[in-house]
């Protein structure tokens, strides 16, 4: 093995790659743009959608309750609802989003309330639909108000204090430091994108340097040189690794810059809702460095696998076909950190990609489980070494190199 030859090959591949617009897009442009888009764009869009939904006066329908005119009048008087006349197809209207929610008032509701009985009203909404859910929430608030008023009147009529029905208050306060709040909020999303970008960053250089070279006839030219096969693999592999790692570095730098410049929209919002506090940093800055370190063996693993698979393909088109299932297979484990309640265990620390996803989330939240981190780093490195050995082996196979 000659390092001089390896770096000669790497230098040429780097120069060649930097002249390839497609690779630059996957390696630099997408990773740089996606974090601000994710943190600002997605947060802003979600906030706009929710605030717009909240600002809407929902159309609701009262089903039944002909003998309880006071309730309908109070609903109309509240100004929070546009009360529609009852129609038999109210369920279809909710499904068609022409009606946000409906409330069913039982017969004799007001009379029962005055008598101290416990009649039940039923709210109908379209679960999962934001505006319908908000309308149902508002209706519930309205009826809780009616209930409280009735309780207070009932107690007052008997000379009892209102605190009898509400003897104490409950307050909720946040004790988590800002970076943990921010880390928990975006800590699941960021690893997902980092891992996916790492894979995407490796794909284009890998396809270009293997199947692409076969297709263009340059691989045979290169094989005629006296460079040893191992040197050729390592030189090319270093370029693929550069693509994967560059995607991670650009996305993390972009993430850090976004947080520094505009603050974390999600983290700041959460803190504001939890009683204020400093808005920056919402993610542990050391966590970003930790993510960079733990993603390195993943980048090696991805680069080696993608390199070997692309090398096997006859053309870039065929390589894309082989790599699509890999891309899909990585989506699920890299998104594990998005699932609530999944914590790092020794078993999960050995599962590739899942382990890194969870570790990244913890590190961005300022949690450092050093024994687990060591296991994750070591095991991922072992998987990566095996994948790299496979890549070298593939490059020695004539049926792979000359599979055209």
């Amino acid at each position, binding site marked *: 093995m000659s390092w*001089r*030859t390896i770096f000669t090959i790497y230098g040429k591949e780097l120069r*060649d790659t930097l002249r390839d617009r497609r690779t630059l897009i996957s390696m630099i442009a997408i990773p740089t743009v996606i974090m601000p888009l994710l943190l600002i764009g997605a947060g802003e869009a979600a906030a706009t959608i929710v605030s717009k939904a909240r600002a809407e006066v929902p159309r609701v329908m009262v089903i039944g309750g002909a003998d309880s005119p006071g309730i309908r009048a109070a609903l109309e008087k509240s100004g929070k609802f546009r009360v529609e006349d009852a129609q038999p197809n109210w369920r279809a209207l909710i499904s068609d989003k022409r009606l946000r929610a409906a409330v069913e008032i039982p017969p004799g509701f007001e009379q029962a309330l005055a008598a101290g009985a416990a009649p039940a009203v039923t709210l109908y909404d379209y679960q999962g639909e934001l505006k319908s859910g908000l309308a149902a929430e508002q209706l519930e608030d309205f009826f809780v108000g009616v209930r409280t008023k009735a309780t207070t009147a009932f107690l007052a009529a008997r000379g009892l204090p209102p605190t009898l029905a509400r003897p104490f208050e409950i307050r909720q306060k946040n004790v988590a430091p800002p970076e943990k709040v921010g880390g928990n909020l975006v800590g699941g999303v960021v690893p997902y994108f980092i891992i996916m970008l790492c894979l995407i960053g490796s794909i284009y250089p890998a396809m270009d340097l293997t199947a692409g070279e076969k297709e263009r006839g340059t691989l*045979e*030219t290169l094989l005629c*040189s006296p460079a040893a096969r191992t040197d050729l693999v390592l030189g090319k592999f270093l370029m693929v690794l550069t693509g994967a790692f560059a995607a991670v570095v650009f996305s993390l730098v972009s993430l850090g810059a976004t947080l520094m410049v505009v603050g974390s929209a999600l983290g700041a919002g959460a803190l504001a809702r939890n009683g204020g506090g400093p808005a920056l940093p919402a993610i542990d800055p050391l966590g970003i460095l930790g993510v960079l370190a733990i993603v390195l063996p993943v980048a090696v693993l991805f680069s080696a696998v993608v390199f070997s698979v692309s090398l096997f393909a006859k053309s870039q088109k065929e390589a894309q076909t082989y790599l699509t299932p890999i891309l899909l297979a990585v989506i699920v484990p890299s998104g594990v950190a998005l699932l609530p309640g999944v914590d790092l265990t020794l078993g999960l620390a050995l599962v590739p990609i899942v382990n890194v996803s969870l570790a990244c989330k913890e590190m961005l939240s300022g949690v450092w489980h050093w024994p687990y981190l060591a296991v994750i780093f070591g095991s991922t490195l072992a998987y990566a070494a095996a994948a790299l050995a496979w890549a070298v082996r593939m490059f020695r196979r004539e049926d792979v190199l000359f599979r055209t």
Partner: protein
Amino acid sequence: MIEARLLTKVFPDRQRGPIRGADAVSFSVAPGQIYGLLGANGAGKTTTLRMLATLLRPTSGAATVAGFDVVAQPDQVRAHVGFLAASTALYARLTAREMVEYFGRLNGMAAPALRARVAALAAELDMGEFLDRRCSDLSTGMKQKTSIARMLVHDPQVMIFDEPTLGLDVMTARSILRFVRECRGRGKTVVYSTHVMSEAAKLCDVIGVIHAGKLCEQGTLAELLARSGTPDLEECFIKLVSGGAAA
């Protein structure tokens, strides 16, 4: 110097069973000699030449190129061989200069010697006009000159040409043939594969006719014609590959 002894390559094939790409091919080429490997498409020319250039490993048999064993010393063999084929392309995003320099560095050439060598090759092959243009922007003739410079940069003793004129226009093909003759003039050991009879007849000192992986016959043009009793190389070739009967 090239010495091939019973060189055989078997390709496994799940559907058709083992395929003998080259079957016990033996020949030798001396310095200052052009050995022509004449055969139809799929006859085994490329397989044989790829084994000599160590791109493929022989299943059996042996060969030495410039004194190095193709199986035991593949890196040294490649360091002494220049290989040019229709399938050996250029890096489109590199300039002609970068392309030639890259292969010089892969051959272990130091920077000052490499710069001097590239300048000399550029002058010799008249590449000055396009030396710093990207290969994607070059004409076919310019690309061929760049490929030749890439092949020559480390001044190899042995030159292997695998159908280098395939798909080229007459003028570019003529310049390639002129260059091959010049190699002979400089004392290089040359192997030239083709399926074009006129090329083989005009260019080669010794011709080996290959068919179905086997070397059917070899000798000078005069020897081949005398042994086969045919008036020209085409008739001779047809007689050899059809098992004795000339058309």
